[in-house]
């Protein structure tokens, strides 16, 4: 049997133990996903409500839309760290996959810039009576299509058995990884997951701001998208590579427990969201499904990570076995900057949330 063309890892040792890198990877990915759900999912929801055109919907869009560009800014910024950590821990798989499907991967940049620019255009118009719906539609479409780019890279990086075929059929890296049966269910899972999460975030915002319309609309989005997720999620599970499939259904592996924890959280959130979405439901009723939905996202992030490790273990790769030599000085600099960032963000949030006082010269210090 011809061995799979998996490149060797870089000869330099990792500067941190692999388990810490994994923790940082998952933590930063969760933060990135939160911002994506808010920014990209929020764009889709805002466009849909703007297109419906009722005054209540438009009022909702006017209040929510200004949050979207900063959310996309943070989605981009927060996405850099997991991109960095994945290159460190899974470099041979990540780089091979991106080069073999280079042009679709490069398209990410242009989709992002165009979608983000159009989002600004759409948001800039919502204060007026003439919403730029085409901008909103295109921004939604372009930002959502990044899901295809990312799913393509993720699936390809886990399937070195498909690399040879892709290299032969596409020497310039112009093709998607269409040979992988998990590509399309993964895309759908991602898109509806973003929509469901955005719906729940909208409901949470509505509960916080006591905006009944936002609360009800957000929960309805969550319910609809989560019901779709049941179908896409099952499809995606069935299309997983064999090693990942067996691990996820084992019932005892960590990834399996994470998956069932996520599914359980999502199911419970769904059950609780239905009564909470009814007119006249209490504001507080949003709290439990909101927390459960976040639990579902965490469960899915962990299950996804374990599915990758199980798939790559089948081809002999173990990210925990990579050599490392801890660089304590650099770690201390990083940790110090992290503490300073937390102090800065806390201060900024405190300043922003401070009551606006009459007269620009009011002193808070």
């Amino acid at each position, binding site marked *: 049997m011809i061995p799979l*063309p*998996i*490149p060797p890892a*870089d000869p*330099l040792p*990792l*500067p*941190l133990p692999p388990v810490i890198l994994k923790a940082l990877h998952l933590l930063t990915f969760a933060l990135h996903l939160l911002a994506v759900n808010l920014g990209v999912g929020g764009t889709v929801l805002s466009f849909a409500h703007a297109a419906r055109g009722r005054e209540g919907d438009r009022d909702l869009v006017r209040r929510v839309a*200004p949050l979207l*560009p900063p959310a996309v*800014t*943070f989605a981009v*910024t*927060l*996405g*850099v*760290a997991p*991109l*960095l950590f994945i*290159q460190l821990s899974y*470099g*041979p798989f990540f*780089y*091979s996959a*991106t*080069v073999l499907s*280079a042009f679709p*991967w*490069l398209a*990410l*940049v242009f989709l*992002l*810039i165009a979608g*983000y*620019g159009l989002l*600004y255009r759409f948001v800039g118009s919502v204060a007026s009576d003439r919403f730029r719906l085409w901008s909103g539609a295109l921004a939604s479409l372009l930002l959502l299509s990044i899901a295809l780019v990312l799913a393509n890279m993720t699936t390809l990086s886990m399937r070195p058995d498909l*690399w*040879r075929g892709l*290299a*032969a059929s596409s020497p*310039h*890296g112009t093709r998607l990884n269409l040979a992988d049966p998990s590509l399309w269910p993964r895309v759908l899972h991602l898109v509806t997951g973003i929509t469901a999460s955005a719906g729940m975030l909208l409901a949470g915002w509505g509960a916080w701001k006591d905006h009944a319309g936002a609360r009800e609309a957000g929960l309805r989005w969550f319910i609809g998208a989560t019901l779709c997720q049941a179908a896409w999620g099952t499809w995606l599970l069935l299309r997983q590579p064999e090693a990942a499939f067996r691990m996820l259904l084992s019932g005892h592996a960590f990834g399996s427990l994470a998956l069932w924890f996520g599914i359980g959280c999502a199911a419970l959130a769904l059950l609780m969201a239905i009564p909470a979405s009814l007119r006249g439901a209490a504001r507080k009723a949003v709290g439990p499904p909101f927390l459960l939905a976040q639990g579902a996202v965490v469960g899915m992030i962990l299950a996804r990570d374990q599915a990758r490790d199980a798939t790559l273990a089948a081809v002999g790769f173990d990210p925990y076995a990579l050599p490392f030599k801890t660089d304590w*000085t*650099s770690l201390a*600099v*990083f940790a110090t*900057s*992290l503490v*300073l*960032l937390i102090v*800065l963000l806390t201060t*900024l949030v405190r*300043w*922003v949330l401070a009551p*606006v006082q009459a007269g*620009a*010269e009011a*002193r*808070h*210090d």
Partner: protein
Amino acid sequence: MNYPVWDVPFLGSGWVVGIMAIIHIFLSHFAVGGGLFLPVMEAHARKHGDEAMLRWLRKHARFFLIVTGVAGAGTGVGIWVVIALANPQGVGHLIHGFVLGWATEWIVFIAEMACITVYYYGWDRLTPERHLKVGWLYAICSWLTLAVINGIITFMLTPGKGWAESHWMWDGFFNPTYAPSLIMRTLVMWALAGVYAFWTAATIEDLDLKERVLQVSARWVLPAYVLLPLLGGWYFLNIPPVSREVLQVGMAGAAAGNFSMATRVTMLTVMSTATIGVIVYFGPFRNARAFTRGMAGAVAVVALLATGASEWAREVARKPYVIRNVMYSNGVRVEQVEAFQREGYLPNSVWAREYAGLKGDTALARGEALYRGQCVACHTWDGYRSMQKFMAPRNLDSARNMVRMLRSRDPRENIYAKFMPPLAATEAEGEQLAAYLYQRAHPGPAAVARK
């Protein structure tokens, strides 16, 4: 070649990186320079109670937020994408050595984004004192992003003496060109802050305000003109002697009418920078009221040219390495050359074997795999640095001689040794490469007859 190769026809992967990098640098330098511009101008306007300037500054902040947030951050991601496509070995090596530096850069970048978001969206919400403080915090954070990334960029040209042994991040970070590069870039960023301000100020209808804003903005360009030549000299003295030699040979050749690419790029940098100086003096500084958006656009285009040319010159100075003395631009590490020349490139390169196998593992297929692995990083077949053009006038013996020469690392034997990585392959593999290049440049049965 442990990774697949991104073969971009005509343009070459290097130019894709170059285009993305130049646009990103032009935008990100504005993000840093503009970061200082905003609070300085706000403080000035508040001190003098200049409400009109404050209103313009708010518009300028929106322009700044969109340009740096959308295009700046987007091309920042773009840089990550394209450098990893063009040179996965190099990026992987850099990330292993500097991941905590990049992680720190990421932290500062989040702080920067948080500050500019609060600065713009908090214009009415924050008190003037706090708003200005947020502006200063943004200025500090954005400069720190430069201070961190500068360590990694300059490391690639001048890794310093200790890093090769210790592989400790800080041995490479504070390298000989760190300080001059940091100061030079800071000045360029201030200049670009002024250049970008011309764009939004050019359409101010209140002519008094327009004059005030443009004249102040023009002063932001000035320090760069006074100090850059001195700093450029300092930087030049700290780059490796071989790189200095490349640029000096180019300059000496210009006197005899022989313009090397390095000379042309250096001249382009000098001329475009001088042009900006002239336009800025006679435009926004002396004739601010008549200054138009078209003129502002022209200044921006020339500034982009200057940025692009100087970054290109820096890249040329690094040749033939991607990390000087550590890794060549085709991803072969310096210490691997000897082993590859002794044992062979294909047996040591996963994807070179793979590419050869895809074409039947013939001698020509192996030659092609070698071409892909060691040449395509800098050459295209029929576009930029065309191999077709280079090979067309050669016969097979000439091709063989050239390839034999390329195996040497001694500049006396290999005239390309200062710019090109040595061919890291056995003599037999070199023959296969020569045959492939010759065959491809002279397709058809005639090729056999000509040899």
